[in-house]
């Protein structure tokens, strides 16, 4: 049967057809749907882990125990997961172990543009890279087989355009799930120096065998069109090249991108007048070619930044421009904004008003950095809000402590904020941590997490009690407040900031997009309005100025009522639907 599938769904399908037993991941765009789609197959055990390191370790355990296991993450998630992964390269596997990692060239939803292929090189792990959904499925199945055949974890590398494009996939019957026998094998699985020294020898030997395999790997294909130009590409850039150049080029398409073949590349390049390596981000394939002494064009002609494009490839290689209409310059940008009814809006309205230094984190609330809320001072990586505020406060002193808060979402707090909080307490830091508890992992599209009391499949489970957790690590002052009750919330922030010792405020109000949240009616500005425009400071997309006065757009307003609480003159009222 044929079906049109998202690249990520095709990876899930491949894992299913390979009889995967165990999937543990932490969400991250553009990788999230792989695990969500796996969870739709009842046969597969699936879970959201608190972070990528835990997820990968769980998958490693499942593999050692004899199951086929997978863990999926976005590129920066691989940083978090790196520690166990580097050593899993030494232990190898029992059941096949696949690590799917999705890069985000162009940073559609990411804080950096790192190239995860470097990890494959550094950790000495086989890496495959599909170009479309059909290959996503095939390569995933092959990844499990190769993992077991070569006794290695296997990386499956995606990029946004592959992960989030849909194309046609031929579905097959799944292999039966099985759990391979487990035998205690300390020499293989206990990585103390004496054992690891021996395993490293095996890893290097494996790399030689994999290099041989790369020469004949069915995923590395040449395509001779009798052209003078040669193109080496993998993943999405291969499809861009085909679109841009068609039969004007010969192709070496690499589906296995670590280790890279030697002879295949030499033989291909020998037959071309000129060879272009087309790869987004870093010159990984290009540098390999140069190490072989093969002359290629690459980053001298194309950018390190962002995504490649069909027109760009055509321009550089064929010197052809594509004509396109131009639009006049006055096209206002439309940046993403917090949704109408977003609970974070209340928090940032107050933080902005109080003029605090805000150590930020990653989630929907990062939008609090954008105007008009403009409240966030720093954003680095998940969890950094708490730990970075600690550093800021230690350097700038006690007065700064009273003006510095961290903001961190519930999922992010569990991911890596809690360790920062322990550090703050242990090292006698200060400042106030505001946990933005909207009862869900919002940014990545509503995943459950340990604070929501539900599993990936929505089943009830134990729920982390954030208040008790903070108290348990030594925070004496933990307050719970509703960010939409702006007066009280402001008072609580002021009180907690005034303390010399560290404190936590749990800003509790669920995400407005959750099913159980039912705002009704619509807010209206009455004739009590004195046109002070304070309501605009909340940055609600439903409130705009028309003819010099704020008005509420009924088609955008969901009746959350924050503006009612923000208005100093009681001039906004909520009207229920008739």
């Amino acid at each position, binding site marked *: 049967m044929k079906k049109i599938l998202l690249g990520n769904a095709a990876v899930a399908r491949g894992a299913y057809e390979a009889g995967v037993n165990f999937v543990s991941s932490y969400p991250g765009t553009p990788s999230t749907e792989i695990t969500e789609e796996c969870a739709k197959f009842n046969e597969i055990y699936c879970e959201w882990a608190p972070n990528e390191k835990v997820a990968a370790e769980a998958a490693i355990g499942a593999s050692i125990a004899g199951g086929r296991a997978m863990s999926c993450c976005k590129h920066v998630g691989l940083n978090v997961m790196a520690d166990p992964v580097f050593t899993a390269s030494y232990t190898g596997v029992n059941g096949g172990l696949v690590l799917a990692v999705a890069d985000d060239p162009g940073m559609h939803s990411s804080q950096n543009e790192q190239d995860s292929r470097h990890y494959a090189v550094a950790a000495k792990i086989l890496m495959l890279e599909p170009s479309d959904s059909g290959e996503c499925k095939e390569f995933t199945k092959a990844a499990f087989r190769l993992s077991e055949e070569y006794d290695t974890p296997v990386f499956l590398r995606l990029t946004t355009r592959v992960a989030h494009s*849909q194309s046609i996939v031929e579905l097959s019957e799944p292999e039966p799930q099985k759990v391979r026998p487990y035998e205690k094998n300390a020499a293989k699985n206990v990585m103390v120096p004496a054992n690891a020294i021996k395993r490293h020898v095996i890893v290097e030997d494996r790399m030689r065998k994999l290099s041989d395999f790369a020469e004949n790997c069915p995923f590395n294909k040449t395509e001779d069109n009798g052209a003078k130009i040669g193109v080496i590409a993998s993943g999405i850039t291969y499809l861009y090249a085909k679109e841009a150049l068609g039969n004007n080029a010969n192709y070496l398409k690499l589906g296995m991108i670590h280790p890279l073949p030697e002879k295949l590349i030499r033989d291909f390049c020998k037959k071309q007048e000129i060879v272009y390596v087309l790869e987004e981000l870093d010159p990984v394939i290009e540098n390999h070619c140069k190490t072989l002494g093969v002359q290629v064009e690459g980053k001298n002609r194309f950018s390190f930044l962002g995504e490649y494009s069909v027109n760009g490839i055509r321009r550089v290689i064929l010197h052809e421009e594509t004509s396109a209409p131009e639009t006049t310059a006055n096209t206002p940008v439309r940046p993403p904004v917090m949704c109408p009814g977003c609970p974070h809006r209340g928090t940032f309205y107050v933080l902005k008003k109080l003029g605090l230094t805000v150590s930020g984190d990653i989630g929907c609330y990062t939008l609090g950095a954008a105007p008009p809320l403009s409240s966030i001072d720093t954003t680095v990586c998940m969890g950094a809000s708490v730990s970075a505020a600690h550093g800021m406060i230690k350097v700038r002193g006690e007065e700064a402590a009273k003006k510095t808060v961290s903001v961190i979402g519930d999922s992010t707090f569990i991911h890596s904020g809690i360790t920062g909080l322990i550090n703050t307490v242990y090292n006698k830091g200060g400042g106030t941590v505001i946990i933005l508890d909207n009862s869900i992992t919002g940014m990545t599209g509503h995943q459950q997490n340990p604070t929501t009391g539900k599993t990936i499949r929505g089943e009830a489970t134990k729920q982390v009690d954030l208040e008790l957790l903070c108290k348990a690590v030594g925070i004496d002052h933990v307050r719970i407040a509703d960010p939409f009750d702006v007066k009280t919330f402001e008072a609580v922030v002021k009180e907690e900031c005034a303390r010399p010792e560290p404190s936590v405020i749990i800003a509790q109000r669920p995400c407005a997009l959750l099913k159980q949240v039912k705002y009704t009616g619509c807010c209206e500005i009455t004739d009590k309005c004195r046109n002070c425009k304070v309501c605009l400071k909340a940055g609600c997309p439903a409130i705009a100025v028309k003819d010099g006065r704020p008005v509420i757009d009924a088609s955008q307003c969901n009746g959350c009522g924050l503006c009612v609480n923000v208005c100093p003159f009681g001039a906004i009222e909520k009207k229920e639907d008739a």
Partner: protein
Amino acid sequence: METRSIMIVGVGGQGTLLASRILGNTLLNEGYDVKISEVHGMSQRGGSVVTYVRYGSAVSAPIIDKGGADVILAFELLEAKRALPYLKEGGTILVNSQKIDPMPVIMGAAEYPGDIPEELRAHANVRMTDALSLARTAGNSKAVNVVLIGMLAKTTDIAREKWVQTIEQTVPAKFLDVNKKAFALGYEA
């Protein structure tokens, strides 16, 4: 058949994803090779959203580059203007006349351009409809997406019933009536 390219643009939350699903499934049922691409995540929070749909006998890239779209289906006027450079010479723009102010306009830092329909007409065959009103007539303002799919359907040579079939397969039963009405209103607009 040579690959045809349709770009769907709008504002996060307008339901462009359902529109591309209906379009994609209809094309698949017609036996075409189909590729669809859209970015999920950050951009859905009320930002500009773009979906590329390409079909033919064998499609390579899932993305449409500038100057590559045969048709732009725009859910919002300003987004049509933003997408204009992606249109092929002589291409068609089907556009909802609805305006949604972006944050810079709301804050008074920019103005919503007033002359968009004229600008579009200078480069393209333009069909403009008030899809929001039609969706309300159909019974639900959220059905804007299916009204626009109706408009798009009319410009293709795929039979009307085929579209209705995929709507039946794609839309949950309780919204089916509204959506079939919305499709009809768009088709006949």
